[in-house]
């Protein structure tokens, strides 16, 4: 039993070493080994896209809450303008970045 256990343990260890070494075995001499990461521009675009989505979702919820009666006409009028401006600013930023 001990010999079998030792053999199995050795097989498990060997399989794990292969799994860990796999990226190097597949590409022994990788030309481009640097990690792809978002540059400054991508990060800015991501932040603008997040701001746009945030504003659009908030607008959608505001419209729905107004329709259900949870948000009064007075509150709706006060909130909708700034939200539209936020969405427009983010969209404009994304468009400017695309040029």
């Amino acid at each position, binding site marked *: 039993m001990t010999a079998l*256990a030792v053999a199995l343990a050795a097989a498990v260890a060997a399989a794990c070493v292969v799994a860990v070494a796999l990226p190097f075995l597949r590409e022994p001499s990788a030309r481009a080994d640097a990690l792809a990461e978002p540059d400054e521009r991508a990060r800015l675009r991501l932040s603008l896209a997040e701001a746009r989505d945030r504003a659009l979702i908030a607008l959608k919820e505001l419209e729905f809450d107004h329709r259900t009666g949870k948000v009064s006409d007075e509150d709706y009028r006060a909130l909708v303008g700034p939200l539209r401006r936020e969405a427009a600013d983010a969209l404009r930023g994304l468009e400017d970045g695309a040029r």
Partner: protein
Amino acid sequence: MAELGRAALVVTLGLSLYALAAGAAAAHLRRRRLAASAQNALLAAFVSTAIAAAVLFAAFARDDFSFVTVAQTSSRTLPFGYSLSAFWGGQAGSLLLWLLLLTAYGAAAVLLNRRRARDLVVWVVPVLGAISVFFSFLIVAVASPFHTQVAPADGAGLNPSLQNPYMLAHPPFLYLGYVGLAVPFAFAMGALLSGRTDERWLVATRRWTLFAWACLGIGQLLGAHWAYKEVGWGGYYAWDPVENAALMPWLASTAFLHSVMIQEKRGMLKVWNVVLVILAFSLSLFGTFLTRSGVLNSIHSFTESSIGPWFLGFITAVAAASLALVFARLPLLRAKTKLESLVSREATFLYNNLLLVALTLTILWGVAWPILSEAVRGESVVVGRPYYDFFLRIFGLPLLLLMGIGPLVAWRRASLRGLLKTFAWPFGVALLAGTGLLALGAGSSIPGLVAYSFSVFVLASIALEFGRGTRARRSLSGGSWPRAFSDLIARNRRRYGGYVVHAAIVMLALGIAGSSAYDSVKEAKLRPGQSMAIGDYTLAYRRLVERPAANATEVRAVLDVRRGGERLGTLEAGKNAYTVEQQVSNEVAIRSDYVTGEDLFVIAEQIDADGAVYFRVFVKPLVNLIWLAGIVFVLGSLVALWPDAREERRLALRYFEAGLPAAE
């Protein structure tokens, strides 16, 4: 086969060390192949840990008492099904379960996120590796489940309280919760280490946190039901430190699940959210420490060992290192927006957070004070039920009220006139209910009456939300009412799943208030033929019976139960004498009325040789709402957890537009 288990754990330790060191080097030096190699190490660590777990389980299944842990927690007469309970009933087995779940979560989190949040995952791997190093080191060097000995003829057996179907589910669910909180923690640390404090770490961990939180909640309810039916003291939650240990991370993650919405909707509370994730994970480690270190003398702390100092050191290191990292990254966590009004959805979430954290810290103090007192002053101090009940009322009742207020208040700000209009209906219903209950005599407990009235307010506000939402959805897209209702939920699963969870919490509050504020208890020593009365019930003690069971001898007192003139049947309360374990357990009898939610609960406290039995009988109104709340809780969690195709498309578009590597 112990050698295989031991070797597999050493391999796990080696792989975890590699994931930590190579992962950190790859993230720092920006090396792609090294990062992939570290990720593979984390995946392989799951496989090697699963092999170790399989070896241990096989030992339990074969009654191989040459394994010390098997001999300590199992026996030949133990039914096969409880081999699993025995697996995690001992310290070494439960730590192995921790490690197995941790490596499983780590592998799954890496596999599912390595495309979308590649630059983040690179930093997540060493964090998960570090946690895995600690647990695998502990199991390899301090508390190995693979210690062997000359096999005795039979094992010592499993604690009778653990020989229960609930013990097959309660510990794994708790552990799924405890360990699951490692994922949001690792992503939060990954975000801070990489300096990527955008929303991706929240998006990547949202469902993991929800899943871990739901598992912790389910685990606690299963534990409460187990305590109610099996431990036999007449209650379901005793503010036992180990019960509190599971409650604290659940409360902290509840706060996080709410405050994370403020960050997503308004870009605020970034520091607070990271701190809550650290708190929740540290408390989950603290919970494991309490359960497994033997530092407490409670029913859950069956074993004592030398792992305590290691655990304390690790918890301190985790808290100190992560808070230092938050401090170092403060400039990246500054919010660009501010709270616009104290009357807004985000403000109610903030109040909810403050109350939840205050309750968590209060419970933490109640748990830690006796330990600190004994360590520093050498005096044993008991923090009992009155302390916890007091703070549960102080923080819990306003929390209950906020559950009704929050959904009705708009984001950003709400005018007084709008609020009065929105609140009129639920407030009116709650007032009516409170007055009615007062007239019916519920005023005997003021906290109970307040809890009932607040609960009605919350239920009314949830009903209002669903009702108005369905009507609005129907007017927008036409179709039938059921279609509009399902559309409403499908379009915002988190919000409406959350409301269903709120309904579950209300049911829980009603059950707790009913069974604790309005319960009755009576004690009597009866001989066969004698009767006792409690409330509308009459119990007649008929006879004592003794019969053999699989691994115990059962003694039962048979009682005829009547209510008014109606015969309701018989109940059998008694004790089990376990042969191998040399222990006796209380076996309570419960008659549930599923229409009223009330239980008649009978304990045979003492059975005399002459057949006389000392009975303790409870009538617990509404207690079954607590268990029903568990089902509703699972339902609400599933709704909130269900994948949202619209959101997936929106996120894919967002990452594509940003030109992130994940979108390639």
